[in-house]
């Protein structure tokens, strides 16, 4: 049983098929994914409002589908309106920020304004983090907003081991391991550094397949009990607002 906290809906500009609803459902069936949280690729790389609109329609197609709204802090007022528009939608559990695509860093005053504005909302933030500099920004933002829960996407990318040390002191930062490089010790070291309860299962699907990240978990020498926390128990707790699974 799996909850995948890092999925995408929409096309990518790469040599791969575009995944429709049926194919996504088939993959969730194949890997026993009971909940998957998607953000729109269109919203990330192009028009966030059009992409979010596609996403919200898509989320209605299956009870396992949940979503993050993608915001673009270059459009501050529109981003706030976007959250207001969908805040009551039970399928929306969080906000996705991709500072590399929007080219607005996490500590930019516009990003901070968005986070401040919705600080009482219980929304989870999935943030694309790649590198020590971005991880440091996330750490400072998490310190500023200790009641908001952040997921450090990719555990910080190719220097994930340094990024783990950076976010370790902040219990409101969770990590998920997906990356194009399946480092054999990434999941184990994540647990050893930030604790078992802060490591989630995320894949970057449809870019990266569950088979890839499951392999990372399975090669980590974990007990079945530990794996169950990674695969779904920690995410259940996160989605319940921090209450025990």
């Amino acid at each position, binding site marked *: 049983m799996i909850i995948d906290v890092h999925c995408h809906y929409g096309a990518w500009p790469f040599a791969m098929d575009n995944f429709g609803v049926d194919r996504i459902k088939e993959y969730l069936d194949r890997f026993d994914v009971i909940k998957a949280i998607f953000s729109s690729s269109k919203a990330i790389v192009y028009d966030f409002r059009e992409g979010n609109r596609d996403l919200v329609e898509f989320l209605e197609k299956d009870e396992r589908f949940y979503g993050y709204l993608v915001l673009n802090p270059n459009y501050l007022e529109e981003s706030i309106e976007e959250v207001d528009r969908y805040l009551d939608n039970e399928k929306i559990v969080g906000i996705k920020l991709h500072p590399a695509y929007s080219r607005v860093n996490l500590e930019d005053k516009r990003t901070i304004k968005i986070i401040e504005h919705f600080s009482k909302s219980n929304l989870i933030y999935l943030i694309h983090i790649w590198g020590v500099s971005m991880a440091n920004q996330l750490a400072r933002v998490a310190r500023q907003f200790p009641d908001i829960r952040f997921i450090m996407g990719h555990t910080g990318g190719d220097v994930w081991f340094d990024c783990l040390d950076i976010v370790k002191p902040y219990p409101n930062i969770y990590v998920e391991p997906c990356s194009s490089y399946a480092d054999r010790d990434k999941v184990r070291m994540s647990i050893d550094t930030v604790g078992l309860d802060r490591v989630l299962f995320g894949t970057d699907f449809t870019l990266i397949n569950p088979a*890839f990240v499951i392999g990372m978990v399975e090669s980590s020498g974990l007990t079945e009990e530990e794996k169950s926390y990674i695969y779904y128990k920690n995410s259940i707790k996160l989605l319940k607002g921090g209450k025990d699974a």
Partner: protein
Amino acid sequence: MIVDINTCFGFYPYRKVDVSLETLKNILKFHRAKALSLSLKGIFYDATEGNEETLNLLKDETDVYPVATYDPRAYPKGIEFLEGLRSKGFLGIAFFPRLQGWLIDFAPFRDVLEILEKENIPIIIHTSGYGELTKISSLAGGIKSPFIISGFNYSNLSEAIAVMKKSENIYIESHLFNSPDTLEYLKKYTGTDRIVFGSGAPLLSFETALSVIEKSYLSDEEKEGILGRNLERMIGVKL
């Protein structure tokens, strides 16, 4: 049978991690797999010393076969080692341009390829970045040896497809394939005969690389090809 063409052993300087030969052997034993491998000393420090270490440590191994390496930044130092690689016991030679910071159209590398042409040995190149494989295909056009390229994921698969359609001696290695769909996509455009299995173990997860192959909708015969037979056919040796 599984043969992993992308493994290594030794000391990893970029972070503390166990990449010993013993760990590699344990992984292979668990999966009943064989591997082509080389000492990291040859990549990070000195190719000749590394190659000698690879031969020395693998001489009594039955499931791990030696791969040589050469660093063109050191050219022509140690170039004589590349003569007679097959007779020394190496099943391939691997290059690491991205890790070592040189480019495919680096003149010393062209000279090295000319020397290797006489060896008829698989040339494994670990690279990534748009345009790199296109450059390799230009070089490979005049050389009969098979080229095995490692470093493809969703982002640069288009280049692999375009090049493989034109160059029969270009193969690709699988460790960065992020999804079973990648294999199904390649099958549609290039077939599966020129895909070989690699994992990056013990640095990277063997289970991940294997899982992507096993979870695909390819036939058992196609999977067996990728997991070993394609490589055996290429090198003309039953492993």
